[in-house]
Structure formats: structure tokens, C-alpha cells
């Protein structure tokens, strides 16, 4: 018996796996499956598309360019780089209630925050409050790591250096009277950025931590003075700073500036005239950029974007169309054969 077993030592195992007989599902792309399948998928997509489109249509967006390239633009006077501390007022009116919560964005175009070297030019350790990184910033910040006197720049790097510094104040003009619209600057950055990723050094007062460092070259004031009114919004955890540090994906982008959620504006901006006071600081014309402000409300799927709904509708229709084409061809060539 032992010998007999030995004799078939080389015999392969007869298992489904070794004999390649694993049970398998063989999808067959035949007309019977494909055509109904296409119709079903197409219809489902059209359904989703319609829903998305309708949702998207309900979102209101108000965009106002204030670059000031145009001579008629109220900010034209500020577009000259030599003019400092320029302020311009942007007037606009709403015909109907702009439903809340209203998000207030600023937008830049032709601005390459995703430029490879720019995007890397920062020091995350420094921004997380690591004091060692204060004194010797990472090489990645170069050439914005040290100033001419070899003093470390905090926060270092090109991103921080180029921080957007226009400020906006919104007034509702009621009967010629400008009434300040409260803007909510809290929670506009990612929760994790504000609470985990970016940390001020645990030195109090905060100013001391910055001893021996210099502010970024373009900044008018050091980081510990970004928001002197609120220590929880100062330094590296300043929300505007956080928003800026999150690099935009595309050269035309908007970033959240404030939300309008408080008081009487909780339901949205009522119809009427509004005036936006802009502290115009940020130069964009040198690189053919534009600046704009955007008011928008959001739905469950984010801001206004009709594209996705259209995409669903188009793809869905294509599926249906294809199934019809196939049906025609199939009917013409297949059915006579079956007889």
C-alpha cells in the first residue's frame, strides 16, 4: 500500500483550484443582458441627475469682481500698486432674500497656489508650535526661511508670506444708513487644522515665543498680532491664516472668508442694498489675476454646481441612447436569424 502511494507521488492534486475549475460567474455581454442593463442604469442616472440639477438650481450665488482693472470699477483707484492702505466700497443690491446661511468667500483667479515649489514652501513643525523650528526653519521654506540678517522668519515659507490680506466689512444700507452685518469668522477653517495641526507655542504671552524671529517679509504685522482681540484666533490658529494655508487645488479658487449666520441675518440676507468696504491690499494685477467676493448659500451637496447634475443626465441619456441603438441593430440583424 505504501508502495502504491509512492508510485503516484507525482500525481497532481485533484482540486478545483489546481485543475482551474473554481466555480465562476461568467458575465456574458449579450444583448439580452446589456440592453435592459443599459436602460436601467441610464434611467437611474437620469433620476439622480434631475435631483442634483434641481438642488443645484436652488442655490444662489452672487459674485462681484473688485480687482479694479476696469476704470469704472470702484476699486480702480486701488489697483495701482503704489497706493497703500487703499479702501474702496463695493455697492450691490439684492432683489430678494438671499437665503441663509450665507457664506462669504473671497476669490482669486490665475493664482497658482498649487505651484510645486510654492506648495511645498512651509514648515509644518513650525506651524505646530515647535520652538526648535522657530529658530531654524526647515529648508523647504527656502528662500523664505531667513531674512537678510539670517534671522529666522516665522511663519516661514512662501505660502505664509503671500497671505491674502484684503479685509472686508459688509454693511446693509437701509434708507441710506449703513448697518453693519455681523460676519462670523469662527469655524471657517477645518476643525482638525484649528485644533490639531496648527498650534501656537505654549509660551505666554504669545509674543515671547517670537523673540529672535522676524515676521514674513510681506506681512504688515507679525503673526502674534493677527487677531489681537481674540487669543483663540491669534497666531497660527488664526482662522484666516488657516484658510490661506490650505492651498487651493486650482488656479481659480475661492476661499471662505466669513459666514453670515448671526442675528437677523440667520435666515439670510434680506433684499435691499448692501455696501462692502474693502481694504484693498493684495496686488494681483502683476500676474494678471483677479479678485472677487462671492456670496453663496449651500445645499447638502455643497456650493452651487450644476455640472454634476448635467453630467448624470448626459451619461444617463447616453446609456439609454446606446441601448436604443443596440436594440435597433440587434433587431435588424438578429431576429431574422432566429426564425
Amino acid at each position, binding site marked *: 500500500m505504501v508502495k502504491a502511494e509512492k508510485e503516484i507521488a507525482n500525481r497532481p492534486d485533484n482540486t478545483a483550484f489546481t485543475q482551474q475549475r473554481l466555480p465562476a460567474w461568467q458575465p456574458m455581454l449579450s444583448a439580452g443582458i446589456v440592453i435592459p442593463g443599459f436602460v436601467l442604469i441610464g434611467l437611474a442616472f437620469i433620476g439622480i441627475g434631475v435631483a442634483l440639477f434641481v438642488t443645484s438650481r436652488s442655490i444662489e450665488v452672487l459674485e462681484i469682481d473688485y480687482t479694479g482693472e476696469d476704470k469704472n470699477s470702484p476699486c480702480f483707484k486701488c489697483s495701482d500698486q503704489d497706493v497703500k492702505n487703499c479702501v474702496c466700497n463695493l455697492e450691490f443690491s439684492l432683489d430678494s432674500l438671499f437665503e441663509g446661511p450665507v457664506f462669504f468667500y473671497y476669490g482669486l483667479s490665475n493664482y497658482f497656489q498649487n505651484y510645486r515649489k510654492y506648495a511645498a514652501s512651509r514648515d509644518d513643525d513650525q506651524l505646530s508650535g515647535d520652538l526648535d523650528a522657530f529658530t531654524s526653519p526647515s529648508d523647504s521654506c527656502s528662500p523664505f526661511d531667513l531674512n537678510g540678517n539670517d534671522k529666522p522668519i516665522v511663519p516661514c515659507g512662501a505660502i505664509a508670506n503671500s497671505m491674502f490680506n484684503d479685509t472686508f466689512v459688509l454693511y446693509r444700507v437701509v434708507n441710506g444708513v449703513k448697518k453693519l452685518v455681523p460676519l462670523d469668522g469662527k469655524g471657517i477653517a477645518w476643525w482638525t487644522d484649528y485644533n490639531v495641526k496648527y498650534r501656537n507655542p505654549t509660551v505666554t504671552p504669545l509674543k515671547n515665543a517670537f523673540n529672535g524671529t522676524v515676521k514674513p517679509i510681506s506681512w504688515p504685522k507679525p503673526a502674534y498680532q493677527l487677531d489681537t482681540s481674540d487669543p483663540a484666533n491669534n497666531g497660527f490658529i488664526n482662522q484666516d491664516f488657516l484658510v490661506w494655508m490650505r492651498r487651493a487645488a486650482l488656479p481659480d479658487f*475661492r476661499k471662505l472668508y466669513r459666514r453670515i449666520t448671526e442675528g437677523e441675518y440667520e435666515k439670510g440676507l434680506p433684499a435691499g442694498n448692501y455696501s462692502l468696504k474693502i481694504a484693498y491690499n493684495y496686488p494681483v494685477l502683476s500676474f494678471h489675476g483677479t479678485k472677487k467676493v462671492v456670496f453663496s448659500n449651500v445645499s447638502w451637496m455643497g456650493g452651487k454646481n450644476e455640472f454634476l447634475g448635467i453630467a448624470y443626465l448626459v451619461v444617463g441619456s447616453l446609456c439609454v441612447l446606446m441601448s436604443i441603438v443596440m436594440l435597433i441593430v440587434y433587431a435588424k440583424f438578429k431576429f431574422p436569424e432566429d426564425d
Partner: protein
Amino acid sequence: MARDSEEDPKAAKRQRKRKQKENKTRTVHANILYDHAKGEENPNRHYANNKIKTTKYTVLSFLPKNLFEQFHRFANVYFVFIALLNFVPVVNAFQPELALAPVVFILSVTAIKDLWEDYRRHRSDNEINHMDCLVYCRVERRYVEKFWKEVRVGDFIRLRCNEILPADVLLLSSSDPDRLCHIETATLDGETNLKQRQVVRSFLDLDCDFDPLKYNGIIECEKPNNDLNRFRGYIVHRSGRRDALYKENLLLRGCTIRNTEDAVGIIIYAGHETKAMLNNNGPRYKRSKLERQMNVDVFWCVIILLVMCLFTAVGHGLWMFQYGDKRPVFDVLSPEGTDLSPVMSAIYLFLTMIIVFQVLIPISLFVSIEIVKICQVFFIHQDLDLYDEETDSNLQCRALNITEDLGQMQYIFSDKTGTLTENKMVFRRCTVAGVEYSHDANAKRLAMYQEMDSEEEECPSRGGTLPRRDSVGSHQSAKVVLRSQSTKSHRRTGSRAEAKRASILSKHTAFSSPMEKDITPDPQLLDKVNECGSQMDFMRFHSQPMSQLPSDLADVLDFFVALTICNTVVVSSPNQPRQKQQLLQPGHQPLLHPRLLSVLSSPSAESTLTKLDEEQNLQQAFSPVPPQYDGRPLSAAEGELRYEAESPDEAALVYAARAYKCSLVRMRFELKSPVKTIEDFIKRFTPSRLTSGSNSSSSSSLVTNRSFTRGCSSVLSSPSAESTLTKLDEEQNLQQAFSPVPPQYDGRPLSAVEGELRYEAESPDEAALVYAARAYKCSLVGRLPDQVTVELPHLGKLSFELLHTLGFDSTRKRMSVVVRHPLTDQITVYTKGADSAIMELIRPPDTGNSKGKRHKKILSRTQHFLNLYAADGLRTLCIAKKVLSKEQYACWLQRHLEAETAIQGREELLFESALRLETNLQLLGATGIEDRLQDGVPETIASLRQAGLQIWVLTGDKQETAVNIAYACKLLDPEEEILTLNADSQEACAVLLEESLHYIQAKFLCSSSEHTTTKSYHSNVSPFGIYTPPPPPSSCPPAPPAVHQLGLVIDGRTLAYALDRSLEDKFLAVAQSCRSVLCCRSTPLQKSMVVKLVRNKLKVMTLAIGDGANDVSMIQVADVGVGISGQEGMQAVMASDFALPRFRYLQKLLLVHGHWCYSRLANMILYFFYKNAMFVALIFWYQFYCGFSGSSMIDQWYLIFFNLMFSAFPQLITGTLDKDVSAETLQQLPQLYTNGQNSEEYKPYMFWMNMIDAFYQSLVCFFIPYFAYADSDVDLFTWGTPITSLALFTILVHLGIETKTWTRMNWLCISFSVSLFFTVALCYNAYCPTCFSPSNPYWSMQRLLQDPLFYLLCVITPAAALLPRYFYRACQGTLFPSPVQVGRQLDKLPAETRRNILSLSGVKMGLPLGPKPHFLSLGKTSFKGCNKKQQQQQQQRRGLQTDSDKELPSADKDTLPYTKDAAPPASKDCLDQTLDASSWITSTPLLSPSDGVQFPPDGDSFCVKYSRGSEDRLKSDQSS
């Protein structure tokens, strides 16, 4: 030498080293002489020791050496270059350490694989190195156990039965009485028969145990080399005497000692210098066609990469340029603070982009392909259908990386003998002295076996999913049939149990099957043999000279004697090795030997023995059987015999031997030759010996002295004595477990397995002849180097003293033995060989006397029968003899001995010597041996041909035999015409080829409308013929040569001319238009030349299959070489890429595994290109939105590991497991194989289609998120991560579309991939808030998963991206399915329906499954237009032809297409006309019908012979 070194060791060393280099010989001294001087003085110390080390690396050298080896691969260097480029700050794109990851990963995967392999080698080395053997130790004066690795050159080694040889050993002593040692060389060459090795000549006459201490020779021999069949050297004794050494003296490492209980030898080569190790070369590496194609596309990928980089770089330069001197705020200066010019910036960026886009070059593709191929090899290896139960062998893949080539073969070149046929020779018929004996009963017996075969074959092929059970059932039923008809079952087809038993029995030795053994004698011939025997008996009784025997009877006797002895067959009995071991029980031998020796060495004993010799009754001396052995009273005759044993010593000796079961005591005496001169010569090579000992396979029979018969003729002639002898024999059988007597002889059936003589022959023909002779009671009962014992009817056992054996060689094509005939005492030469070789050497009959007339008649009649045999497909051999006078012999012998002892050019001299002897022969007769077709060969050939494979058979056989075998295996169809090319000269060959071409053109080109619509043979009969894709119209004018219903037969000589450079194109043109080509009488070199020619000129994929050494060159030349294992040695297997146990497995190997491997790999490679291009293109599109800055929205971790981890596994699973069509359908529809032949899965345009698809899909994957997130505050990586995920989904779904079978593994793997990606991403994004600059993706994925937009994107993007492909596939599958898809549709049908359809389709031409011929007709219309043009051209041409050559038939009649049912009536007319008109084309009804081969009624087969006519023509040309 040793003394030299004392004076100036260094100089001596140098000198010796130089000397060793210069010397072509190796000198081996015995080590024991130098035991005291360890190392330094030992002259053998420079030789390799026996420790083997096949590992490549050591612990220290592993890393550098392995890396060095890996960097030989260009791709690795490239990727390392890219990784290093990343360390340059100006151009770096990723974290430098991270960029190293893929390269390190790939390198380490390969390194681990290498390490594991090396470790396995190390372990097996270790195991081998620590095996034990007995080595003589001078200090202890005995053999001590040592490890193999401690053995050194020059050691004396003692070998016991069943021990494996540790090194190449020169045999100095053997316990065998004949100083023989039997070895089994299966591990070396796969031949399972035992081979004899002989003790070195000068040690032959040692009558006691070999004493190493007395050894004083110095051996000079060749340097180590790998030629297993060559060993030359000599041994120099102290006396100065030189003795030549042959390969017969050398025992090779790895062989096993069998049937010899004890042997001693000296080690000549050890360790890596042994022949076995030198022959050991690893697996072969070839590059497959698919891989070559892939490399082209990898090159295209590089071009695409460079173009993309260049584009980006230029874009970046322009982008920089537009800003001019005003730097935008987001521009970052170089670290030095200096400004970069746009041009410099662009150049740096170019390098950066190479790094970023590196993914486009599929780094993991090479590794993946290797992994997939290993899996494919595993599956092929595991296939039960390719497992041969009988030999317990399965397919071996020796080349690991050309599995997919199996699916792309176009030409098969096959050997015939042993490949198509079993190489099991069956004696069929013979002619003796001009009289034919048809052996009808034998034919019937064989037919029965054949029936059994076919009966059995049908059952398993129906098998479906349970082939095992079915076949078992059929085996059992077959067994019942078999049992009822024959007492023995055929080994090949017997039940499993029986097969198993047979294989157990043949564990150590190969024996013939019953089919080959049980030959039913022809009654007429049997009568003659009996008559002859009794007459001889009578004459001997009356002391008449033997020459008075009627010449026909004498011829019959001589014929059978020649069959029996003119060979190298060794006799053994099946269970001898077992008995051997019993004998080997300690105690017996030492006791026996001294006593025997003491008796035999005493002068009195010797004189007694001499006396015995003179009284010529040696035989009787030990026939008495001890009473306890056999209860029966001994007959008077035996009593007499006992009485004749005069000396009590002798009797004692015999009895002693018996008591120790040493059943045989053999004694040999010096020849007493009447001629003095011969005696002197003979003395030198048959020295007197007196040996004793146990039996061995060759001496396991009773051996008689030459004078035995004369002496006891009185006893033997009486019937009672005869029966007594038989009985005695039987008793011997009981004792020795074999019977020298054929079953019919004593009327009692013997059991099939026990008690049977087994014949082991180097070639199966020889065994067949010996078995045939045995059927006529001329049985070979023993063979020794110098003696053959034959048992003849009425005459008993005769010993032929074997003076010389002139072995077979392929040049002479014959072998001869020179014997002293015991009856006539003449020196007789028996020659056996190919008819062509023998017929030339026959003495021209002297027509003057009646004898001469008779000879002439015999000659002509034999020739006639030979032709008949050949026409029956039998292998023919002629038997001839020659009687030498003593003077002639002495004269020849002198020169022969000179040749034998020559050191230089020995082979040539021996060859010439043989030529001198083999002249003026007298023809005795001829035999026809059938080489049976292997199971399933015709079916395999038919289905391979249906698969579009052109099959050429290249054989060394003669033309008629080959043609008949070709008919039998359906290679040639009786309905097709055969062009036979036989030419005598280059010119004739040229003319023949020219004429053949004309003929083919005239006959077929005129009817080309036929061949274009139905293109070729296989599309004609195939049910799926209309699926064969019509060639694109553009390729219509130079349409590939059509394959017609033509067979081409060409012989070796003509082939040699045709392969000439000037004619090869014509030859190919002719051969290409023939459906099958048969090259006969071709040499191994020609075989390889033909393969090379076809491969190089036609640019096709070739497969060569063969089993013997003569096929090796062909196997090596072909793209894929296949060896048939286990038939004729291992040489073919060693050279092959795949080794199959049987030819019919080729069908599944090619049609199923080849198809699968090809389509899997092709699809995987295409997918790989697509996948990488699609992924890289995403980043490319992004460059338009990031100032061409080389920025990437995909996190670098995802970018690096996307290929290595996230998307790596599903494609591996699909590449390994996907089955486009099931195995059953693939086998039943061989047409599907054309898929691979035409490279339909991977055409060059497909690469570009895939690239375009990849770019399209990446556009979708990029721009849907782009627009979806436009005008939002999305940040870089929150936008990039969904794109990565979408790309992954798209890629996986794409794979899903391309996957044809979804097993659990596929589901598992795809879900694993997806979950791996998300798990890794979630972990990675939660791991560290401040790390992974610059992306720093902390919490991105987590946020993303909360975003409904992400899910919406996940649905729409893959759908939109894959819509076109899916639509295309759906249309293709529904509206114009490819044959493969039809196959898949068939698979889906229930098994019953499918079988019906398939069986229908085999008969009907139409398409039962009928998917839309309309679509094809669309294709055809354009095609027909093209046809018309061609037809017009042809009509013009035809016009010309008819003008110039009126002989040619009008072509219009041929326009009808052939169908299988309607054999070509039109063409027949056409041909008839041709035949009438031309003198040079003749139609001969080629063959007579024979058993087993179905021939058409006469007239349906044509043979267009050009040979005669053209020769005549040439002659007439010359004369005029």
C-alpha cells in the same frame, strides 16, 4: 613529481600548474599512497573534491552579487537612476527616500526569490554532501564510512547494491563472476534499463578480492568533460604495462548500482568535475514572442513619457516667460535667492517630470509577469490531464518564461518514432530465404489490442467534469474484455491497478509490454523451425556434418539464431534484485568465498576441472538438484548426469554452491582453437578465468560449454531426457524465479509476471526481434560479454562464443556479431541492419550454379517483400550472415585488435574495421516490425490541424514507412494528392521544385476564388469557418500562400539539395502551399535546418517535438522545444522547454494551456499599459492647471504605491486565473487556437487603442472632479484624493470588464484592493498631523468620506469613463462576436445542449449557433471586389500559361471549392487530363490497404511522382 616539489615547491607548483593547463589529460594516483602526507604532497590535490556547491551566493556575497546581477536588467538600472535623480534638490519631485521605495521593493522581491531558491539549493547540496559511502582507509585497513563531501579523487570506494555513486568511479573490482557491474542511469539520462560496466581489463583476472594496498597503477585520462558517452584513458601499472580504459569502465555519479552486490573502484572525477554535474545546466531562458512585442511597446511608453515631459517643460518655460521680469507672489525663487531663467527652469522641470511620470513605465510589470508565469507553470504542472499515470510523470516546464508562446504556435515539427509512435516495437511479419510468413494470427492479436485502445479512448474523452471516474469505469470494462480474450493484459491500456503493478515491477528496469512479447508464431514457419530442429538433432545424433542440412532449413535456423544473438539484449528476471538482497545477507558471502577459493585454487581442482572440460560434461555437473529441493525422484538421465561428475571435490563444490543458493557456478576455459595464430590473439582478450559467485542478471541462466551438446546428445535426444531437462529448467526457475522457456514450449502456462525472462534492450527493435525469436522457441537465455546462450528447439541450450560485437551506429546503420557457432564450429558473422545498408553488402550471387540462382531469387524476393513491408508502414530490418574461414578471421582480427588498442582515433579505426568485416554477406531474411502509434495521435493531429497548425513530420525512417505512418496518423489524407520529391542532384531538385510550383499554381491558383472565400483547409471543414476573420482588403494582393489539399513528401537527399541557399525559397513556397510535409530519411542536422529555415524565412512560431537524441538540435532551434519523456532517454527532455509524457498531451498543452497563458498574459500586459498610462495622464492634465510646475494633486504616497499595492493584486489574479473559454470547449473547437496564432489578443494597434482609452478615461476622471469642484474652496489634496480613488475604481471596473470569469478569488481580490486603499489612506491620514510634507494630508480622507459629493463622483466617473469600452464590448459580444466569444457563449449553454451542438458542428458545415453571418457578409463584399481583381490577374496569367504550356489543364473546372464530402471531382478531371497529357506526372495507386489504416478506394488517392519523369528528362536532355 612529488620529489620535485621538495626541491623547489613553488617553482614546481607553477610548473605543474602550467603543465596541468597544457596537459589534456588528468593523472590520478591512488590516495592511500599519500595518506601520510596530507594535502601538500598528494598529486591529486588540485582536483576538485567531492563537495558540491550549487548555490550562487554566500552570506557575505549575497547582497553585492545579487544586486550586481539584478542590475543587468536594464529596467532596474533605469528605475534606480530615477530614484537617484530624486536626490538632486533642483529637480526632485518626491521625498527622496520615498522615491526609492518602488525600486527597493522590486529589487527585494527578486532578491528574496533568489535567496529562497539559493537556500533550497543549499539544503539539497547539504543533503547530498552528507550522504554516506565506504572509502578505504589505509590506517585501519578497511573501508570506513565517510560523507560524500569527504571523498577525494584517488580514493578507493566500495559500492554495494542499490547504492548511489558519489562520484565518477573507475571500476576495479566487482563481486560479479563476470567482473561486471550493473548500473541504472535513470537519473542521468532517464533510461531505465540496466547497463553493464566492466572491470578494468587488467583487473579482470584477479581471482580474489581486490586489495587496495596492492594497487600500484597510475591512471591517465581525459580532463573532465560533459560527454556522458566518452571516456578514454589508460592505466599504467608499475610493470610499465598499459591498459586502455573505456567508458565501459567508468561508473558515473548519480547512477545506482544494481544487481551487483559489491564493487570497488577508484575515484577519477569528483564533485563539480563529474560528468553528471558538468551536464547539469539550469533552466533555459528564452524570450517569448509576446514579451518581444511588449518590449516594443515599453519602448513606445518611453517615447510617450519623453513627449509628455518635453511638452510640460516647454509649457513651463512659456508660463515662466509670460510673467517676464515681474515675479508673481506665488513664484518661489531658488534656494540661493537667484532668479532662474525660463529656459533653465524648463530644463530642470524636464528632469522632474521624468520622475513624476515614471509610473508610465510599468516598473512592476516585469515582476508581475514573472509571478504570473510562475503561477501558469504551476497550473500546467498540476493539470491532471497531462499526468501519465503509468509512468507517474507529469508535464515538466523546464523553461519558465515562454508559457504564452504555447498559444501562438503556427508550425509543429514532429519526430515520428517515439513521438507519434509508441516506440514499442511489435514484430509483425518476416521473410526467410525468400519465403514470406504473414503471421496472420499475430496481426489479429494486434488488432485486438488496437480495438481495446480505441474503445477505451472514447470513454475518457467524453468525460466532462468527471473524467476520472469515467476512465476508471472504462478501464474496468476494458479489463473484462481483455481478460476474456487474453490471459494477459496490455500494459499500456490495462486497468489502473495493472498499470500500477507493471510500473512497480518496472521500477528499476524497463520491460516490454505483453503486446510486444506475446507473439503468435506463424504455423508454417513454426513447422519449419521444428523440422529444422529435429533434423539437426538427428544429424547430430548421427554425427553428420551440419552443412548437409537443406539450405532453406539452415537459413531458417540461422535467421533465428541471428535474431537471438545479433543484438545487445540483456536477460534478466523481474524479481531478481529482491532475491539479490536475500543473498546479500551477511555471513553467507564470507563463508562461501574462502571455501570456494580454496577448493578452486588447488591444483587438483583445476586439473579436475580441466578434465571435466575435456569430458565435456560440465553442464551436467551441476544439474543435480538436492533432494530437499524437489521431492520428486530424479530420472535415470539425471542419475547418469550425476554419475558423470567425477571428482568429489567438484560435486562438493556444486552442492556447496547450491546450499548457498548460489545457483550458478560457471566455469570457463581457455579456448582450444585449432589455429595457432588465432589462439594467440584470442588468448589476449579472453583470458582464462575461473570464477564463482552468485548469479547476476546476465548470468542467471545455466550456461553451457560449447561442447555440451555434443557430449550429451545421446541423453538429450531421448524425449524423456528432454522433458527432464525442461523440468530441471523449471526447478531452476523456481529457484531463480524465472523461466527460460516460453509458455508454449512445455505446454503449461506460466504466470504473467513471475518466472519470465525479461529482455532489456537499448533499442526496442532488438527486444521485439528477440521476443519474436522466442516465440519460435529460439530463446535467448543469457548474455555475457563473451558468450551468448541460446535455447533452441530440440537442441537445447547452445552457447555461442561471442568473439566480437560491432555495435550499431547511424552511419553504418547495422550491427554485427562475430561468434563461434557451436554446431558447425565455424566463425560466423551475423549482421542485422537497415535494408539499404545490408542489401548493398550482399555478395553478388554467382549465377553460374544453382546455389547462386537460389540466392539471386532470394535476393529479389526479399527485396519485393521489403517493399511490401515498407508499404505497410513496418520498419524493416535485414538479416544476413557470413562465414569466415579461420585465416580470414585471423587476418581481420589482427587489424581489429590494433584498432581496439589504439589510443588515438580509436573510433575511426574500429569503424573501418567493421566495414572490412561486413562485406560479402549472405542474405537470410528480413523482418517487419510495427511501431505502433501512440494513443490518440490521429485525433491530436486532426485537432491541431483544425487549430490552424501546420504539421511537418521529420523522420529518419524510410520514405514508404514514413508515408504509411503518416496515413495512419491522419497526417496525410487519402483524399489529398501527394507530391513526392526525390532527386539525385541539385539540378534535378531545382527542376522538381520548379515543376511542383507550376503544378500547384496551375492546379490551385487558377481556382483561387475558392481559396480566398474559404481561405484554407481548416476553414473549409470547420463549423466555425466563417468566423475566421477575412484578411483586411489591403493585404489582399499579396495574400499569404494558401494551404491546399496537398501533401509533400521529400527524402533526405532531396532535402539536402532543397535546403541549399539557391533553392530554399522555392522549397518553402512549395511546402507552404502543402497541407502537410513529410521529410524522410532526414538527419538530425537537417531537422534543425528545416526548423531554422521555416522559422527565419516565414517568421512564424515553431514548435519542435521529439523524444530522442536525434531531435535535440531541432528542439533547441525551435521557438518552443518539447521533449517526450520516458521513451528514449532524457536527452531530448534535457534540451526541451517542456517535457510531455505522451504526444497526445500536446493537444491540451497547446489548445488549452497555450491559449489560456497567451490570452491571460496578453490581456494583463495590455491592461498594465493602460493602467499606468491612465494614472499618469491624470497628473499630466493637471499640469495645465498648475503652471506646468510638476505639481501633483495626488499624494506622493498614493502615487508611489498605487502600482505596487493598491492596484497590483487583482490583475495578478486575473492574469493567473482568468479563462476566456473553458477547457472543454477549447479542446472541442480547436479553431479557437487561431486566436493566439494571429495574436488577436494583443495586436500592435491594441496598445494604441488602450492608450487612447487610457487618455480618455483619465480625462473623464480628471475633468469630472474638476468641474464638480470648480468654483469651490476645495484644497489641493482634498481634490486630489477623490481623483485617486476614482482612478482606482475605474481601473478596477475596467479590469472587471476584461475579466471573463469571476471566481471567488477575483471578488476577494478586488474588494481587498479597495479596502486596502481606504484602510491605508485612513491610517496614513490619521497618523501624523505634521508629517508627510508637502502634502500633509491630515484628516483629508476622513473628511472626504463625509462628503456626499465624493460618493456621487464615485458613481458617475467610472460609469462615464468606462461607457465607451463597455459599449464596445457589449456590441462586440452581441452583434459580431469573435470566435472566442462564441466559445464563451457555448460554455454558458447547458452541457447537454453544448455537446449536441458540438457534435452537430463536427458533421455539418453550417453554423448551428448561427450568430449573424450578415455581419460577415458585409466584410465579404469588400473582399469580393478584391477577389475580382485577383481573378482578373489570374485569368491573364492563365491565358499566358495555356498559351505557353498546353499540358496544363483548363482551370475553370477547378473553381468549385472542395468540400469534405465531395472529394474533388473537378480536380480529379483536371489531374487526369494532366496525367494524360504529360509524361512526367504519373498517378500511382500508392498503397495497398492495410490493417488499421483506412484507405480510400483506388483512384481517390494520387501520388504525383516527379522523380522518375524528371530524371528521364534530365537523361534525355543530356543525351540530346
